[in-house]
């Protein structure tokens, strides 16, 4: 095996080795068992006291949703006001301007919903104040929101009949104090020691090797880079994200960042097994998700390592793989791995330009976001997967001749209605959004807008279509990465993707929470020999089939017109 592949395998193996104990730790934290970090509890008690949180008050699923949505609304207002006025506020050494209203709308939402689409560039579009107190802050709380919602669903999955699912604010606070903050500190320190800036000073001036004088942006970036990965946020301090030499200085930090982003999503799967005491169930979920990841990853890495045949034809050496848009310090394999990891989970940070990926890789990156539940984002990945489980349970329950039941509760019309609504939502917002932009582009190319639709796309043809499809897919999946050819900082894109972001975030949280809450109140039916077990390989296969059929089938025509058409043209 060559060293590039060893690097990838090592990254994944280390992730797994860390994720299992972390999963156990997360389970302990929410089970109120003893952990090493119990010394933080006075701090937590202080937070509860000043916030007036009654830690003994348990909430039902509706109260949880109310709590979740109302604090999210407050953060939105906070972010909106600060971004709109940042130019005239303090901590702005580079004198960057305030954001336009449509960009503010888009940016505030995109950080609130754990997407970090970033229609702006960090060096010139944000100030240190907003980077820290809007972006960095939202990165923590949005990740914690997803994890907390998942913990509520975990509570509902236990075998007792109840509508008391814990206190949302307690779960939320502990997620930050016990999981996100400690891990972020470790990673931020490691990044800072490897060269990521952690300073409040403004731009530095250097003389390049060619002898030109140029300015280099800096800032307290290391902390944000840590949480942008841990919390599957993905928003970079710098515009070039983790391809930027200061955001991702070397191969070690590259490994560190790619491990950090997938660490919590995998740990949450194991935490599920420990927490509800169904380890086999969590292994099956892990297995299905891993197979899903591999089915996207292997073709991608093969395509990237092999390089572009069109370039080979031109007589250019492709032994290093397809290097267009990639950083030499990472190489084709590590970049291909990163591009899949960042799309299957909802990070969306990039260390290479996806716009330049091979067509097949682009297809897999899109598919990863379309499925959005192979590991998936912090907390929300399993919530998305939960919907597919409900559908798989329903169909396979029928196939064995029993009214479908999941963890001892019957799945009936009401739950199916919610599950199908959520499953429908993703194709709906992606396809309708892309159709809307394609239609505008074709029929009103010269509309009298600030940015004419005809100038949106950097590339004509199939690749241009992929750029639009990618943008909406990335928003619906709350991913945040982009096919950067798209000119997306204008009213049309800022507003439409803003709404897609909102829908793609909150409905897939509300749906599973509602289903879990309704199921938890239902009568518990003990398992018998006739019960369909959800912790078997067969059921895992069924779930995988449901995911592939719902995700792949709905998007097949769109993929055919985008990356697949490009692929077949290239290898024709």
């Amino acid at each position: 095996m060559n060293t590039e592949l060893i690097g990838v395998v090592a990254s994944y193996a280390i992730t797994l080795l860390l994720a299992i104990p972390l999963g156990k730790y997360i389970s302990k934290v929410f089970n109120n068992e003893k952990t090493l970090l119990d010394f933080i509890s006075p701090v937590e008690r202080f937070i509860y006291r000043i916030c007036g949180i009654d830690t003994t008050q348990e909430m039902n699923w509706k109260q949880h949703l109310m709590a979740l949505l109302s604090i999210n609304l407050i953060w939105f207002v906070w972010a909106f006001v600060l971004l709109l006025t940042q130019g005239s506020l303090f901590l702005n050494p580079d004198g960057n301007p305030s954001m336009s209203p449509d960009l503010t709308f888009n940016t505030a939402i995109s950080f609130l919903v754990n997407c970090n689409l970033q229609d702006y560039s960090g060096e010139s579009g944000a100030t240190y104040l907003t980077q820290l107190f809007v972006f960095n802050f939202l990165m923590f709380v949005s990740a914690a929101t997803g994890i907390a919602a998942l913990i509520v669903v975990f509570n509902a999955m236990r075998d007792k009949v109840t509508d008391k699912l814990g206190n949302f604010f307690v779960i939320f606070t502990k997620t930050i104090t016990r999981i996100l903050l400690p891990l972020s500190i470790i990673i931020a320190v490691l990044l800072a020691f490897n060269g990521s800036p952690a300073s409040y000073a403004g731009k530095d001036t250097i003389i390049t090797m060619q002898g030109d004088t140029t300015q280099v942006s800096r800032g307290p970036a290391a902390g944000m880079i840590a949480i942008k990965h841990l919390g599957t946020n993905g928003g970079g301090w710098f515009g070039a994200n983790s391809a930027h030499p200061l955001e991702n200085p070397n191969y070690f930090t590259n490994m560190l960042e790619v491990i950090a982003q997938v660490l919590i999503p995998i740990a949450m799967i194991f935490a599920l097994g420990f927490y509800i005491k169904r380890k086999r169930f969590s292994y099956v979920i892990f297995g299905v998700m891993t197979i899903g990841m591999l089915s996207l990853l292997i073709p991608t890495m093969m395509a990237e390592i092999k390089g572009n045949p069109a370039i080979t034809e031109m007589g250019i050496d492709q032994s290093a793989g397809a290097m267009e848009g990639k950083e030499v310090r990472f190489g084709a394999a590590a970049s291909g791995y990163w591009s899949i990891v960042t799309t299957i989970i909802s990070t969306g940070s990039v260390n290479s330009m996806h716009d330049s990926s091979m067509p097949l890789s682009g297809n897999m990156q899109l598919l990863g976001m379309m499925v959005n539940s192979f590991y998936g984002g912090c907390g929300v990945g399993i919530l998305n997967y939960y919907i597919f489980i409900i559908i798989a349970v329903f169909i396979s329950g029928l196939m064995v001749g029993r009214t479908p039941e999941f963890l001892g509760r019957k799945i009936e019309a009401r739950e199916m209605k919610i599950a199908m609504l959520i499953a429908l939502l993703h194709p709906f917002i992606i396809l309708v959004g892309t159709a809307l932009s394609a239609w505008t582009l074709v029929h009103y190319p010269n509309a009298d807008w600030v940015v004419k639709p005809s100038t949106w796309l950097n590339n004509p043809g199939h690749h241009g279509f992929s750029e639009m499809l990618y943008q909406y897919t990335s928003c619906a999946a709350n991913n945040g990465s982009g096919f950067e050819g798209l000119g997306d900082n204008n009213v049309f894109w800022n507003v439409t993707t803003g709404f897609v972001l909102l829908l793609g975030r909150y409905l897939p949280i509300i749906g599973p929470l509602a289903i879990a809450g309704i199921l938890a109140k239902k009568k518990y039916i003990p398992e018998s020999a006739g019960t369909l077990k959800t912790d078997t390989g067969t059921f895992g296969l069924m779930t995988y089939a449901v995911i592939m059929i719902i995700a792949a089938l709905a998007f097949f025509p769109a993929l055919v017109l985008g990356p697949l058409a490009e692929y077949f043209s290239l290898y024709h």
Partner: protein
Amino acid sequence: MSNTANKSLFQKDLVTEALKQSFIKLHPKAMVKNPVMFCVEIGTLVMLFVTIGILFNNNGSQGSFGYNLFVFIVLFLTLIFANFAEAIAEARGKAQAESLRKTREETPAKKVFPVGELRIDEIKIVSSSTLVKGDIFICEAGDIIPTDGEIIEGLATIDESAITGESAPVIRESGGDKSSVTGGTKVLSDKIKVRVSTEPGESFLDKMIALVEGASRQKTPNEIALTILLAAFTLVFIIVCVTLKPFADYANTPITIAALISLFVCLIPTTIGGLLSAIGIAGMDRALRANVITKSGKAVETAGDIDVLLLDKTGTITIGNRKATHFYHADGITVETFIECCVLASFADETPEGKSIIELAKSKGAKTQATDTLLNEAVFIKFTAETRSSGMDLKNGRRLRKGASDTIKKNAIKAGYEYSTGIDKIVTGIAANGGTPLVVSENEKIMGVIELQDIIKPGIQERFERLRKMGIKTVMVTGDNPLTAKFIAEKAGVDDYIAEAKPEDKMNYIKKEQASGKLVAMMGDGTNDAPALAQADVGVAMNSGTQAAKEAGNMVDLDNDPTKLIEIVEIGKQLLITRGTLTTFSIANDVAKYFAIVPALFIASIPALQGLNIMKLHSPESAILSAVIFNAIIIPILIPLALRGVEYKPIGASALLRRNLLIYGFGGILLPFVGIKLIDLVIGAFF
């Protein structure tokens, strides 16, 4: 079963009727109940307009007239096929029910009118259809019973072969649990007075026919959930097809309306959508074929979910009744005296047990001919649940009793007799061997013990094993003492038993199981079973049972066969499995259809997409047509499967899922590749 002759699924007259119905059912008001097929109907209508439009103004942008017409015809056939599936299921169910109803056509009834001050009965011959609930009629040997009712006076042997197919006559008598008679059956001997128990047109059979005809058919909860799933899939594909238009505009590819509608119809789950109601009706029909009348479709479905099965020991687990096998006399009593006591205690006892005691005594050479004087002067003491003993009081003061050991023992002790340990030993010995000890006393003094033995039905252990694999717990209900019950339970292989069961014990057991979330099924016939039948999730009343029992249950078994519950559970499971597997099959089909149609849509403007045409279909038109044709003909091909049901194999849930996933999941992916390719080979010659 009575109707093995009607094996063919498609009898000529049924098919004609069903074909007629398939056109009538095209009415949008009927179609809208099935969202999937309603979408197909809209698509078909659009194609009709497009085809007509081309006839008048063909600018070539929508393809040739012949191609469009062909697409329209195939779509129309898809609708007809789906309607035909439902109609043929209805027709079959109706035919089955009608054949039962035929037995109760107009028959003369001897109606009883109370006349005059003394209310002396006067008998008038009226038509059976004029009888209403509460009327009283009489039937004598040779009469056909005009309608369902309950015997209020008398006893008769009745030939029920018209409904059960069983030629042996049965005895029905007033009081007791076998007092119900069914219209259409024939009285063979004696005379009975019957009170009509149902209004005309409201008998179970009438209700069943209404259910099958769809007039009162409601979707079951499971059907509703499945309809939601299918509707959602339909919606997804509406989105896919609608957004495809701007996508194609962007790619500079004109898409014809025919292609877009074909893609849409192929993608939505028409196979299961078209067969869904047929599957439900066929489930009720299969129950009817097993001679079980269901009061709702839901009951059949629930039967598939049953966790606990309450079975009466007698008749289900053991053959008929117990037989006396041995006499054990008490110390100090001669064999002859004891046998004489036994004979006297059993003389008037008409139960099979009583008769078997006389038979055994006869085989031992005892005198068993009673003189009339003896019988006339003696008083027969009937068995009651309270005394739990029966016997005879003779004129000369001898009081003979036989009964449960504890009752007789209690009475003996009360009367001052000593209860010897010898008797106790015999009693426990018999019980431990699965026998029933019957203690005999004369004037409260214990004379000895009669051993009654049960004979377990051959093959019943295998059936219970099958049930266990389905995850169903079997519970034996018996009046026997716990020791006997335990022995038989172990021998027959049931999971649990209720010994010395009183009617309320059944009820309590059901409630206990239900409280822990289980679904319970039971079968019963007596009035005292009625509350438990009503409490159970699936209550099957025997047709011979009392009216109260039949009202309380949600199914009626015409054969009065206690093992029928097992069949009912399998029918319920089969119903759900058929739905599940065909849904999977339908959705899995989409993969191949995509590979047929999507390249066909874009190949003209993006020739490179030839790489996606993995089936190597002849031309875009032939590809699209092949996909819609496959989509249409798969419905009639699967009708037999929908009507017969997918076979249920008790191999455990995971193994069953694996098996069905392999056959209907992978099969569902592969089959259309083959099918579409084959159709394309034919169609390709024309388009």
